[in-house]
């Protein structure tokens, strides 16, 4: 019975660490087409990175778990003895350096992407976002106003920067499609920017717990053509 359990664990493990990165890669490729491409790259790098580390450890453990089962009742283990300082330090420092190298590699990748994510392009269209329990209000440069039913309407092909604050509690504005979110709170102003390259509709929603109707605080980002946008914003003025 125990053998079967182990076998099952082995199969699950191999599927998870072997297939997941590959499958997920397709999934993310489909989802990213614009400035979030860099995010995609980092994400896939990372999946390989953790997939390989996890795979090595997992395969080793599963192999050990099978190979070193007890054969005789009075048998004891024959593991390595760490008697010399060299051995202790070697087995501590060498892996540490490998992990540290990987940490710095990932930090560098993440940092680069972070700078892109936080540097707002000069020509971005500015929308003022106010969060309240439980809805959003959007105010455009020309005075047009919108809310979560109407949606966050933006023209295609121009970066948008959201200047965000809250009237009451902490909320968080999240657009899964553009891989961004940031909290809104009273007394501070926060930013977010994204690049709606192509027309389409995407969900935005609140991701910081804010009370009863937290899960109702959602709507759609509507990316439309410039003409449609101009017409819309004229209509919604004031």
């Amino acid at each position, binding site marked *: 019975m125990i053998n079967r359990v182990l076998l099952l664990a082995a199969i699950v493990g191999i599927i998870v660490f072997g297939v997941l990165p590959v499958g997920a890669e397709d999934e993310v490729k489909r989802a990213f087409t614009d400035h979030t491409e860099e995010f995609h790259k980092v994400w896939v790098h990372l999946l390989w990175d953790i997939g390989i580390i996890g795979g090595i450890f997992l395969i080793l453990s599963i192999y050990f778990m099978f190979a070193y*089962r007890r054969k005789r009742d009075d048998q004891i283990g024959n593991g390595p*003895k760490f008697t010399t300082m060299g051995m202790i330090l070697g087995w501590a420092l060498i892996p540490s350096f490998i992990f540290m190298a990987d940490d710095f590699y990932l930090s560098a990748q993440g940092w680069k992407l972070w700078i892109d994510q936080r540097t707002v392009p000069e020509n971005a269209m500015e929308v003022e976002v106010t969060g309240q329990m439980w809805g959003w209000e959007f105010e455009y440069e020309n005075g047009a106003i919108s809310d979560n039913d109407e949606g966050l309407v933006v023209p295609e092909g121009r970066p948008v920067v959201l200047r965000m604050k809250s009237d009451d*509690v902490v909320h968080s504005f999240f657009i899964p499609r553009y891989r961004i979110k940031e909290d809104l709170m009273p007394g501070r102003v926060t930013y977010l920017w994204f690049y709606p390259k192509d027309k389409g509709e995407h969900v935005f929603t609140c991701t910081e717990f804010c009370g009863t109707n937290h899960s109702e605080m959602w709507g759609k980002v509507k990316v439309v053509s410039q003409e449609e946008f101009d017409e819309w914003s004229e209509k919604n003025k004031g």
Partner: protein
Amino acid sequence: MIKEWLFTTDHKRVGILYLVGSLAAFAVAGIVALLIRWELTGIGETIGGVGPDDYNFWLYFHGAAMILAFLIPGLTGFLANYLVPLMIGAHDVAFPRVNAFSVWLFWFAIVIALLSFVIPDPPDIMWTGYPPYSSEFSPGNTAFYVFTVHLIGFSSILGAVNFLCTVIYMRAPGMKWNQLNFFVWTILGAFVIQLIFVPVLASSVTLLLTDKYFGTAFFVPANGGDVLLYQNLFWFYSHPAVYVILLPAVGVMMEIISNMSKNPIFNYKAAVYGGVWGVVVLGSDVWVHHLYTSGLADWIRIGMMVTTLIISIPIGLLIISLVGTLFRGSIKYSTGMLYATSNLFLILVGGLTGIPLAMTSLTLHLAETYFVMAHFHFIMGIMATFAVFAGIYHWFPKMTGRMYSEKLGVIGFVLNFVGVNLTFWPLFYIGFLGMPRRYYDYAMFPEFEPFQVMATVGAIVVAVSMALNFYNWIVSAIFGEKAPENPWGSNSLEWTHCQSPPGPGNFPKLPKVSSKWHPHEYKPQVIEWV
């Protein structure tokens, strides 16, 4: 009999009281988790008459109870109390009455937490309790949250002082630091963290309380308070708190893996001084990874990304020791060992999915989604829980003098392992696609419904296995066969030098250990009695 248990100062009984309390909390919070999962199977209202407010209260209770009343007391209350004095060869802890007092505090905390089921305005502020919601806007009773935290916090500070003194002053004659059981080291690390950081949490929730009920404005921005400060203070404690959970969990795994493969711990010194103490030292300056999208300055977030990633070094050393201990071992599988070895998989999944969450730029997308939820359930909700279960099974013969049913145990384990994987893998997936956590409803993502259903099916499987486990423990404790003195062939003092269950005072005579002895060496050795 009841009085004897209530007023006991014996560390073993105190430990059992902790066990009963924390398992009770686990059971209630687990049933609540089932309700939550059931509610999520469909879009909109799924359980008739259950609105978002009920859901939010359940979620508050589930989170707060699982962490504050199950994992922390289960690992640093039950296991530490039961095992540490036995492992170091002491008659009891240093301050037995203080110990009894801390278990009372813990029980009061559980009563207060449970009372929130009957009061008209149960707290709904989640276990994190962020202001201004918790301090100004919540219709719920924030005080219940604050008092629960106070009681449990005070209880663990007392526990910390007690156990640090016990290990420092009451080791068996001749026992050197490098001869300590690995579990004892992890408990030391966990209690050092508790001693330093719990006061910070206690003072910040106190300020929350005065804000809500006495009209102060510590966290109200209009009057000069700082909204973000509470979040910082909360995580300044609560991140180290996850190591309070992780370290003893790894300690239990290490004990069992070493014992059941009859192998010394792989690079014991590196795991203790690099792993355990590395985590304690580095763990205090990474808290901002919970605040990557909270509007803090960009450079703070980047700085803490680097420190957070660096934590992988001590954790890596611990994992190397865990896996390495299997190498050339003589492995025998018991239910406890199955839980411990499957934990290798869980700690890898939970730990490695923490790496994208450490990177600010990826967390900009992943924060506050089901991805985070699945991550912390793997490392904490499952890995640490499995460690508690492994501990219960492994030391069951010690605590009761009887054997549990291995067959039921293994069936329970299989269901449990399959169930948790079924529950949480789909949540990684929809989390990556954007499903936010703490959502009563997900009308914006109708396509996630099948995954939610799958998770609920998994949760039901888990519930069945839990029922089996509880049944196994209760029935075996009363009717189980008599257990042999040292069923696992351990070399640790609690197995070699005292009966099962140990009598008052633990050891007939205080054991004395020679410099050749080590709890994780499996050669026949001469052990002297005083």
